[in-house]
């Protein structure tokens, strides 16, 4: 903790309010593209700075929630406006504000040409939802934020997306909504089971406070409803089919936050709510989730290999990477859990960056089919260097951030001794996924970067300063988190152990 005492009170509420404040002048300047860009950049930058102050105020090493604010919201129902962060969410919040700032900055560079003001309004609304999901401690507030992300993203894909945008965006919304509405039923059931009428609550700290837990039978179904919503969001195989469509059609900025943040809401929800609230239910469904995770890792990698569209390839690689997240969470040990959270952060940085670079390339060439590309290495040295490092990070090269998370997840998996078959089978299978990732990513890199370049591409410029400015922080994080992950692990580990302890896991063995 750098700032002691904290210099910003109510910092989390501030984070939720700043984007809303930014919308007000945007509404006035909605027809003025230049002003809209400036307002949005300033707003998201202020948001980023405030989130960094929040990180600086965070007391490292504590497992519980910090900077908690809790006021009654619907007093007659006992529902509270309750926000707070712990080691798991604090970094996800910073990731959110960083990726949003980069997305807005990149979009201002000319990627969004029509209705810029409206685009920025949708993006700021989306930011409220994304930050809200990670800071909400009351399940009702969490659900509101979870759904608040839906409509802005629906519009971002549907209005500013590619040719099949309508199909893609409807599919995205309907999949997500089907899952989350069932979760809403489960949330209401949790509420009714939280105590006698008059003392009911949806506050997460209250729900996990006492030694009493929900009845086993109830847990089985409630966990299923929660897990289904998060599995669709994450997405887990076989609920992943919306993802490639949404990613291919979304504008670059939409793809960045979709992969970087929205998918994380699923993994975060599993770790924060589904596991600690319903440990017995989790035990029942755990074997299926582990099998599906390994399937996602192998299937995602295999399907990525044969993709012809660059964006689709990265989208399917996300399915594989998210498989590592669920695998790490559900082997229920510290290494797995910490690895899963790291994997979420790293995937946000690296895949966000990859989508950014595909977007940059597409802006220049208007091609995304791998067969149409090639030979950029000689013409775009800067682009190639950046892109190359992100590709290597994505395939898990030691020394870059992708390696740390996957390695810890694999370590946790090998130590998993539970049902149906011990980690000695799942570990090697998941490791095959890492090898496959190297194959499809390097093969893609080879086809796109080497070989003869098309005549038409020779005149195209390398990265512009604004594009470098977007990519530089991501590159820095990629290297920093790869070489020196310990400070981040120190933030994450106590909170992960607390959640896993609630989920009934063994957390005696530390990472260091």
């Amino acid at each position, binding site marked *: 903790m750098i700032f002691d005492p904290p210099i910003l009170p109510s910092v989390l509420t501030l984070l939720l309010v700043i984007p809303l404040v930014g919308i007000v002048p945007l509404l006035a300047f909605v027809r003025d593209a230049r002003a809209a860009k400036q307002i949005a950049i300033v707003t998201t930058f202020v948001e980023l700075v405030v989130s960094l102050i929040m990180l600086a105020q965070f007391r490292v090493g504590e497992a519980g929630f910090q900077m908690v604010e809790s006021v009654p919201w*619907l007093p007659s129902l006992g529902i509270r406006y309750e926000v707070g962060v712990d080691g798991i969410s604090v970094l996800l919040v910073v990731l959110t504000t960083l990726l949003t700032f980069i997305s807005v900055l990149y979009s201002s560079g000319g990627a969004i040409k029509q209705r810029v003001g409206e685009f920025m309004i949708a993006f700021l609304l989306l930011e409220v939802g994304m930050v809200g999901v990670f800071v909400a401690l009351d399940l009702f507030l969490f659900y509101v934020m979870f759904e608040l992300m839906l409509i802005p993203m629906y519009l971002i894909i549907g209005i500013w997306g590619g040719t099949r945008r309508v199909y893609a965006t409807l599919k995205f919304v309907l999949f997500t*909504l089907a899952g989350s509405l069932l979760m809403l039923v489960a949330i209401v059931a949790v509420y009714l089971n939280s105590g006698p009428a008059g003392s009911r609550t949806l506050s997460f700290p209250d729900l996990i406070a006492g030694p009493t837990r929900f009845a086993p039978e109830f847990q089985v179904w409630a966990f299923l409803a929660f897990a289904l919503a998060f599995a669709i969001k994450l997405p887990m195989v076989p609920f992943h089919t919306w993802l490639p469509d949404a990613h291919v059609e979304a504008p670059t900025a939409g793809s960045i936050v979709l992969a970087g943040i929205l998918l994380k809401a699923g993994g975060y929800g599993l770790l924060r709510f589904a596991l600690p609230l319903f440990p017995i239910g989790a035990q029942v469904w755990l074997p299926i989730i582990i099998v599906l995770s390994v399937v996602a890792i192998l299937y995602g990698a295999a399907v990525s290999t044969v993709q012809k569209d660059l964006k689709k390839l990265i989208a399917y690689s996300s399915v594989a990477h998210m498989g590592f997240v669920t695998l790490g969470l559900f082997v229920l040990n510290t290494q797995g859990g910490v690895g899963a959270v790291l994997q979420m952060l790293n995937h946000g940085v690296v895949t966000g960056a990859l989508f950014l670079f595909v977007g940059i390339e597409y802006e220049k060439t208007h091609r995304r089919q791998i067969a149409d590309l090639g030979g950029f290495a000689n013409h775009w040295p800067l682009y190639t260097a950046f892109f190359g490092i992100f590709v290597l990070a994505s395939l898990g090269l030691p020394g870059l951030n992708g390696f740390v998370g996957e390695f810890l997840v694999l370590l946790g998996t090998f130590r998993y001794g539970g049902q149906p078959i011990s980690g000695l089978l799942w570990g090697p299978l998941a490791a095959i996924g890492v090898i496959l990732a190297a194959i499809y990513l390097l093969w893609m890199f080879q086809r796109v970067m080497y070989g003869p370049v098309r005549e038409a591409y020779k005149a195209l410029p390398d990265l512009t300063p604004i594009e470098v400015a977007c990519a530089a922080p991501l590159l820095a994080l990629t290297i920093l988190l790869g070489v020196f992950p310990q400070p981040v692990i120190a933030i994450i580990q106590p909170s992960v152990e607390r959640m896993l302890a609630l989920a009934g896991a063994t957390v005696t063995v530390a990472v260091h």
Partner: protein
Amino acid sequence: MTIHDLLAVLPEAIVTLVAIVVLVIDAGVGERRARPWLPWVTIVGLAIALASQSWAPAGGTFFGGFVVVDDFSRFFRLLFIVLAAFTVLVAPPYLRREEVSAGEFYATVLFSTIGAMTIALATDLITLFVGIELMSIPVYVLAGLQRRDRYANEASLKYFLLGAFSTAILLYGFAWLFGISGSTDLAKIAAAVRTAGLGSPAVVVALALVTTGLGFKAAVVPFHQWTPDAYEGAPTPSTAFMSVAPKAAAFAAILRVMATALGPIQLDWALVFAILAVITMTTGNIVALVQTNVKRMLAYSSIAHTGYILAAVAATAAGASAGAAVLFYVFAYGIMNLGAFACLELLDLEGTRGATLDELNGLWSRHAAGATAFTIFLVNLTGIPPTVGFLAKFLVFQPVIDAGFTWLAVAIALNAAAAAFYYLRVVVHMFMYDAEAAAPKVEPARVLSWSLGIASIATIVLGILPDPIYSFAVRAAGPILTK
């Protein structure tokens, strides 16, 4: 009858007076000169009626037990006055365009409102029946107000014939209730029903007839067949009103009759209502999925919403939270559904048929505020936070699960997900497709746009800060449902 009795129904008396004043001005000053300020006369009158409650007695029974003033009736007074005012605010452009008599329209809406308010006042079958008729007959007129339009005639006739038929069934049911108890007082009927129990065939017959009769009014499947044609054929401002006020009134009647008079056998009819709820919402949503006319789609969607409300009625075993859920849902539905229909009044289309999906193409670029308001209403109807429509669904889930109908809650969730498809498809056409050359003209109506804008923002504000309305609904449900 004393002064005290008359003061108790002061708001109803004032609304009656306003209706008569509107008719007199319309006849005396002449249609053309009166048209611009008749809506404002109506709005001011409605505001006075709402305010006059503070001079009326706080509560109690009046007219020898025929009328009761409690939080329940006050809640519905507020709702019906808000709905009537909203209807009147958004109607003028359409009425002018289609040359519908404005004075007649406003007066008819007001008369129907009086009937709806009377239903909420009833603790006696006679008052209840008078209220139902007073509400229904003006609505038949509203449906056919566009005299020269064939579809409006069809709508009016269908609505009238089936409405009259259902009223007869309802009245027959009331007669059986009277036969069982020898009284028209709801509390005395409850006592007689408790003694007789479901073993008595008379109770079963009465239950079936009353459920059918009230089911017609609320558009419960399988008593819904009149709804799509009546809603589609009626002039759009009439549709907006008749899709919300009569439905809200029907649920007021259902709560009064089912929960009070038939309360003792609640466990027996609850399951029937739960099954009807699932059939109703599923039918409404599935048929709405394939509609290409937005007005007709909204008609089927309103059937689906009947199903959601009915689910909360079925959960009355959960106590006051069920009643509060019904009231809150009816309130939220009133604003969001009226708003959605009113958005169609923005488009200058010939006849009553409303817009097709293709005619909405690119509405965003032609009327950004209207398209945004329409989207907000549709998001409300879908039930996505932070809107009042979401909160209404959340509040329905609670008693439904509490009463042990978890399967019903799951059915609502799946239905809501399916419904998202057709609601959001409208958004697709407005925002994601470009306008065609033959796109209908957009009405440059300032009051209409402002009303839609304010109402759509209100649904979000109420979605974030629902406590005033929700606590009112809890208090209002108290006299009806106590565990």
